[in-house]
């Protein structure tokens, strides 16, 4: 069974592109969610094995989504155009992928963390 990756990204075109990159790499995409509310629904409902979070979502940030994922123990990475964001300081150990990111970088980041998670589970 392929791993389920949640995409939280308010820029529709980026979300679609990210989704196609992940799908091409054999992942199942959850979402994409374009707002915190949508994302939290997906985290609580179908859930996911991994998440890619854009930090700034219009007037809000994905901080609450990160908190929810952390509670579940679901690994995630941030994807942002801002090199340093105060919202990220709460999650010091979480990787930050810089926008614009290459497809390979994203796939590599997801694969590495999911395999670590799976290794921990077994």
């Amino acid at each position, binding site marked *: 069974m392929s791993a389920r990756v949640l995409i939280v990204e308010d820029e*529709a*075109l980026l979300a*679609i*592109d990210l989704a196609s990159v992940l799908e091409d790499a054999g992942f199942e995409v959850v979402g994409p969610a374009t707002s915190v509310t949508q994302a939290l629904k997906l985290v609580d409902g179908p859930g996911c094995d991994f998440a890619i979070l854009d930090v700034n979502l219009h007037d809000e940030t994905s901080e609450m989504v990160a908190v929810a994922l952390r509670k579940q123990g679901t690994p995630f990475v941030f994807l*942002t*155009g801002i090199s340093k964001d105060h919202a990220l300081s709460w999650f010091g150990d979480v990787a930050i992928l810089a926008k614009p990111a290459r497809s390979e970088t994203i796939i590599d980041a997801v694969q590495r963390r999911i395999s670590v998670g799976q290794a921990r589970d077994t």
Partner: protein
Amino acid sequence: MTGTHNSLVVSDAAATALVERHPPTYPNEMVNILIVDDEPRNLTVLETVLDQPWYRLVKAESAEQALLAILAEEFAVLILDIHMPGTTGFELAQMIRQRKKTSNVPIIFLTAYFNDDEHVIEGYDSGAVDYLHKPINPAILRSKVTVLVELHLKQRQLESTNRALLAEVMERRLIQEQLRDLNETLEQRVIERTEAHRMAEQHVRLLMNEVNHRSKNILSVVMAIAQQTVASNPKEFFLQFSNRIRALSLNHDLLVKSYWKKIGMADLIEGQLAHFEDLMGRRVVAEGPPILLSATAAQSIGMVVHELSTNAIKHGALVSVDGRINIAWGLELSEAGERFTMSWTESHGPPVVAPTSRGFGTTVVTRMIEMSMDGKTEVLFEPEGLIWRLSCPAYKALDADNAIAADIHS
């Protein structure tokens, strides 16, 4: 004058010569001298003796007249005849001494030679009292008066110097206060300027961060467009990609023009279809109420209009010379609340053939806009021409300032 001698003045050439060896310096102001004698003739004599251009002699024939004069003016010297009917010179001197203002005015008494007035005079404790025996020697009187006048002038000069000094001290104090006030104002201004500068700097930093964020975002969008374009049509990649980037750039011009806030729907359509300029209003008609789009909605709708128009040129209504496009938008009230609707209707074009594969253009006019505006799209390949429709919650499309927009356009 009731003395033993008839004459007030004696001549003494030697004494005159001695005293007048040191002529007095001419002061630059008049000096008042009061001469008091009950005998008018004596007053006239004294006047003659003390005739100097800078002496102003005031005559009094009684103690009462003398007192009145003293009340009215300031005197450098008083010359009093002791023996007068009524109030004597002594009594007058006493009264003058008692007045604080005149207590230090020097007095020269005129006394008869064989009288014991001297003893009384010596009883005065003040050094500012002198006496002369009658008949008096004019030179000695002049000399005594000169000394006393000089003393008076020096005192007056001292007083005026003192006043000037005091005024200068006051002025300096005032200047110091003004200087301190100015300093405080200056310090306050420096603080204010520094604060304004700091705020401006902070604002610039904020703007730079925002610019950085937006450019990273737009670069990501460009990268996604490149990726999607190459995936769906590698052969025409460069043409399609550059056209899409140009469409994006057009939208940015509009966004910057509106301070990244709101864009009129009509302006957006006009901007994206600028290359149809000669067709606008004839074969391409855009109609709808004045609506201000949010920046996000404007970017998404702009991309949709670009993809639809590109398709119309390549495969749709604009391939044939009769083909028409109608673009319409509006606001509708439904059970789910106010909704923004938009349609793109082609007609009189070549026969419509539904595409076999979904390219990036299709993704933009369906999935992308749906996701971006939380809406629903419909694409119909009718025989008459392609029809595209969008319906989404009004708040997703509109800028908060639409009430104002309606006012401006009405």
